[in-house]
């Protein structure tokens, strides 16, 4: 998981390559969980880097780069999925991909992920940030720009939908 606070003591002397090597793998995983599409995840992460790196010189506390990157990825993925055309295209692709799964556990994971990806953007983001990134309600609220109570509500609603959609599905 992407560390909440990373030490970037060499940031001022480091390069974009160093930052990319250090942060891109976890950033891509986060973007993949939010979008379900590996190529799209890489694109979003590169876009996030391109937006953030230009601001690095103004970042007084370079240790927060990881947090800035995470926030940007969540925002970009949310913005991206507001394009229904892209979302429809993705769902069609993911449906095809699901059929190709052979392992039952993988099938179930894929099914769960598909249901997760059909949740409203903020519910999906709240669940991934809470249960994959292990952020607290307060940290998630700061990222999603809402109150901790709203985070709990988003997670609660999302979990209710997941349970409903996956009722009867067991390992």
């Amino acid at each position, binding site marked *: 998981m992407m560390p909440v606070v990373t030490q970037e003591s060499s940031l001022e002397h480091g390069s*974009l*390559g160093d930052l*990319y*090597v250090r942060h*891109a*793998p976890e950033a*891509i*995983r*986060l973007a*993949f*969980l939010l979008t379900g599409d*590996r190529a799209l*995840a*890489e694109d979003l*992460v*590169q*876009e996030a*880097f*391109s*937006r953030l*790196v*230009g601001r690095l010189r103004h*970042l*007084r506390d370079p240790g*927060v780069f990881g947090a800035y990157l995470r926030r*940007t990825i969540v925002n*970009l993925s*949310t*913005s991206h999925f507001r394009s229904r055309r892209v979302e429809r295209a993705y769902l069609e692709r993911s449906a095809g991909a699901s059929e190709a799964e052979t392992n039952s*556990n993988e099938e*179930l*994971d894929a099914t*769960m*992920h598909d249901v997760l990806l059909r949740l*409203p953007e*903020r*519910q999906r983001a709240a669940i*991934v940030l809470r*249960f*994959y990134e292990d952020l*607290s*309600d*307060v*940290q998630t609220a700061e990222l999603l*720009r*809402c*109150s*901790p*109570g*709203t985070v*709990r*509500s*988003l997670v*609660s*609603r999302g*979990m*209710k939908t*997941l349970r409903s959609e*996956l009722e009867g*599905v067991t390992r």
Partner: protein
Amino acid sequence: MIDERELREMLERRAGTISATPTDLPKAIRRARRRIALNAAVGTLVGLVVLAGALAGVRIIQAAPTPAEPPTPAPTPASVGALAYAVEGDIFVAEWDGSNPVRIADGRPLSDCGTGAISGTGEYSAEGPMWSPNGRYLAYRHTDCNAPGDARGDVVISDTEGNVVTSFPSDGWGISWSPDSTRVAVWDHWSAVGPRSIGIYGLDGERQTLLTPDVRCCGESDPVWSPDGRSLLLGKFEIPLDGSTPRPLTWIRDGAGWALSPDGSRVAYTSGKSLVVAAADGSAGVEVLGDGATSGIPALVNLVWSPTGDRIAFTSGNGSELRVLDVATGTVTLLTETDGSDVLSVAAGGGFDFSPEGDRILFSKTEDEGGGVSSLWSVNADGSDLRRLVAGTTVGDWLSPNQTP
């Protein structure tokens, strides 16, 4: 039935299907670099074109707002120091210490809304009450429980007994009252990457002004009224409401905290790990608290001035400490600290404040590293009489009278 553990494991496994490194690292980096270069070039080229707009960051569609006539007769004001807070979707007004609470809005827990658990019409959840400076009104966020999960909320303005004066749609978290208590400023629409707008609404619920800040100007900030009520402070800009050119607040750094003194004459802001007090225009800055490495006080944030402007309270140590600084002497007093498992925090739109007399400080504490139960606490400005006021919320507001005309 799927539980949280299964969900966590699924997410881990799905993430694990992604290889640990990008497929073509050098190429990916080159692409990112090219994007940065392209962004810079495009930025330079369009810089002149958008200079006015980008520097201003704001276009005012309807300038020179006209303050609405307040409702007549005006509601009776609450007592100075009264505490307003929300728990489980209800709004309460109580004495300063949380005693004698009166529920003025009967809502439902936000976690129940939109889940199908609530079938009745008109059910709602309320949170984040903020007193108008004259104590006659409360503004709070209102969520329709029957609306879809991602639906926008509303802002409700009520009198001190909960009678709704007006309401209007809003996309914001922090609600800022004008100093004269006739208007509120709140995000009308907020997007991380797309168009944004701030609405200024009167007590009649009519939007008087719509500001459309450039996405680059103001990050995650909520609007704050200037003490004279003539402009909004937003991110790195002061935006006059008469339509004149916004002024960049050059002293605000990315990620830095800042707060205007109650009379608007001075500003306190963090610079690196230092705390600086300067004139309101950023000039004549004096470092009143040194770098954490030398002062031993790390990561100070969440600044708030005392009503008399002689002290500044702040949290430090990633939210594990609450301290107060005597501005004149530079003396810092530790008021309370946690063992690190609890987070002392400032929720946007309240939750951290001096009492009107300046003798007590209101703050919130959230257990389990910010993921557990939240509560409002109070401590004397000398560190004595630490007490919990209300459980189940991070946001409260003590009614303080205007510090400026």
